């Protein structure tokens, strides 16, 4: 009962804050908060496969791209499609597909997780390290596909004029849902199995758990929410094109979940605020500033990568390790 009471209270609080923020804050802050909201969805789901299940994957940019394109194609009207498609005419499938906002997001999530299923087969048969390269390659292939199949994606022209149905409130609601779902998984028997796989896959296998099934469930769930995140992104920015789903997106998420603590959902949420806020705040590094007299564009990213390396060497467990903010012993600076 206590759980439900706390749950309802937190939901109401979050919704109220979102509503007020959307109404009274200026558009710059609302945009940043909306971005943070989407990244929260991406981070907590990415954490599920990387942190909780311990399978190092670099998949987000691929699934986010899929989600974004599916949602965009479902939301655009036929007239828009015919007008925008440049090199080739839109294929009949593209003209046929249409839906409203929420179903579009759900379909994006489902498509992404189905593709995750097909990827899981070759990849989870072999261990660990290969998942990273294969998912990285997958991201590349999706981008190449998006560029070349212009009757489906309009190629490099991308899609614009996407209906802007995503606002701070809808994004916030989805973020809330994803966090609740992920936390429920983590605290369920599936979550325990995932953590067991992370800690020692052989022992888990020996205990009779179908590690392939658990890994696949984790991977598919990550993909599902990443697809939804992609759809929200498309609707927020109103324009998408292949080059924005690059490895940089995955890298940002990686920094976020490492900083928050691999395996900690609340850590990922807090880290999202820190990293995204930090990236905006650290803009001054690219200008002439306190440290240097001339502008050095690019210094910001150099500092960010150094930060990641330093965190990995000295504070590998991140802010919360693999615990949540309500578990008693956190601030695990165990070297």
């Amino acid at each position, binding site marked *: 009962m206590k759980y439900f009471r706390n749950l309802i209270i937190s939901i109401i609080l979050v919704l109220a804050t979102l509503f007020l923020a959307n109404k009274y804050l200026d558009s710059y802050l609302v945009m940043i908060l909306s971005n943070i909201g989407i990244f929260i969805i991406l981070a907590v789901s990415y954490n599920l496969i990387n942190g909780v299940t311990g399978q190092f994957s670099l998949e987000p940019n691929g699934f986010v791209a899929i989600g974004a394109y599916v949602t965009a194609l479902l939301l655009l009207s036929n007239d828009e499609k015919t007008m925008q498609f440049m090199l080739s005419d839109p294929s009949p499938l593209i003209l046929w597909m249409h839906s409203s906002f929420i179903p579009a997001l759900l379909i994006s999530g489902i498509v992404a997780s189905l593709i995750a299923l097909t990827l899981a087969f070759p990849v989870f048969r072999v261990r660990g390290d290969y998942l*990273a*390269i294969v998912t990285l390659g997958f991201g590349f292939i999706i981008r*190449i596909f998006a560029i070349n199949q212009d009757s489906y994606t309009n190629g490099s022209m991308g899609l614009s004029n996407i209906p802007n149905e995503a606002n701070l409130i809808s994004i916030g609601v989805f973020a809330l849902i994803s966090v609740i779902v992920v936390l429920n998984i983590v605290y369920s028997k599936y979550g325990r199995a995932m953590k067991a796989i992370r800690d020692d896959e052989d022992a888990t296998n020996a205990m009779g758990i179908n590690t392939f099934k658990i890994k696949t469930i984790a991977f598919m769930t990550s993909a599902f929410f990443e697809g939804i995140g992609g759809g929200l992104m498309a609707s927020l920015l109103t324009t998408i094109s292949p080059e924005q789903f690059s490895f940089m997106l995955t890298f940002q998420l990686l920094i976020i979940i490492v900083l928050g603590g691999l395996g900690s959902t609340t850590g990922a949420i807090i880290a999202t605020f820190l990293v995204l806020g930090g990236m905006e705040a650290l803009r001054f590094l690219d200008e002439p500033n306190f440290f240097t007299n001339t502008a050095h564009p690019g210094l910001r*990213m150099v500092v960010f990568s*150094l930060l990641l390396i330093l965190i990995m060497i000295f504070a*590998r467990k991140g802010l919360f390790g693999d615990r949540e903010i309500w578990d008693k012993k956190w601030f695990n600076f165990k070297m």
Partner: protein
Amino acid sequence: MIQQILNALSLGSMYALIAIGYTMVYGVLRLINFAHGDIMMVGAFLAFTTYSVTSSFSLAVLVAIIGASITGMLTYKIAYKPLLDKNAPKISLLITAIGVSFFLENLFNMLYGGVPQAFNYPSIFDKEIHILGAVTNFASIFIAIFTIIVLISVLIFLNKTKYGKAIKAIAFDFYTVKLMGINVDFLILLVFLIGSALASLGGIFYAISYPSIDPLMGVLVGLKAFAAAVLGGIGSVAGAAIGGFILGFSEIFIVAYFPEFAGYKDAIAFFFLIFILLFKPTGIMGIDFERSRF
């Protein structure tokens, strides 16, 4: 046809040179060194700067090899070794490798700007050579021959010398080698040195063939080289070379004979990767590391 074979030979050589470095590091550390492709970029840029300043290409190559080797060894010492010593989980190493890769790319982006630089080199490499009706340049032939020499040297080193055999032993059983009193740290540094030196050579050759260099040039090439290493059998130097040439040939031939799929040529490497993982995960030369202790 001859034309395409000649093109493929030089492209394959470059992939092979870089793949060897990947495979050697994976062999001893079980680590996919994501930063390896960027070492190739470092080599190209160091050569570029040295040549612009001194106009001596041999010096440029020397500086590039030394600089890249130092960079490679430093990344081991500073970024990987601390984690290995703490028995950190594999995922931390992989994340750190990505961090190093990003750091190198952004560092050179900050130093040189994001615009591609024109890579200058002695014009002898441009000298046209006509073979059996096809036109190629001195560079392509030189690269191919040089790579084969390098490959043979590395194989001799690994199989016939004391250090080389010790390195192979580490790849087979890390802890026992340590127990035998062998200085594993030194040998791993040696592996990084050789791998980085080869990568920097690969970078210079790449820059001669395609004289426009930018900080991100190593990313795609590095990934493809890794796919080539897996294709050939990760851990096997000969396999890496074989994989490199197979990849080079496939890319050239797909574009030449199936131009409608030309846009997918970069994806070929990954298709190979998934294919080999599905059917023969240990690759063509098939060293099964899962059986060995690590």
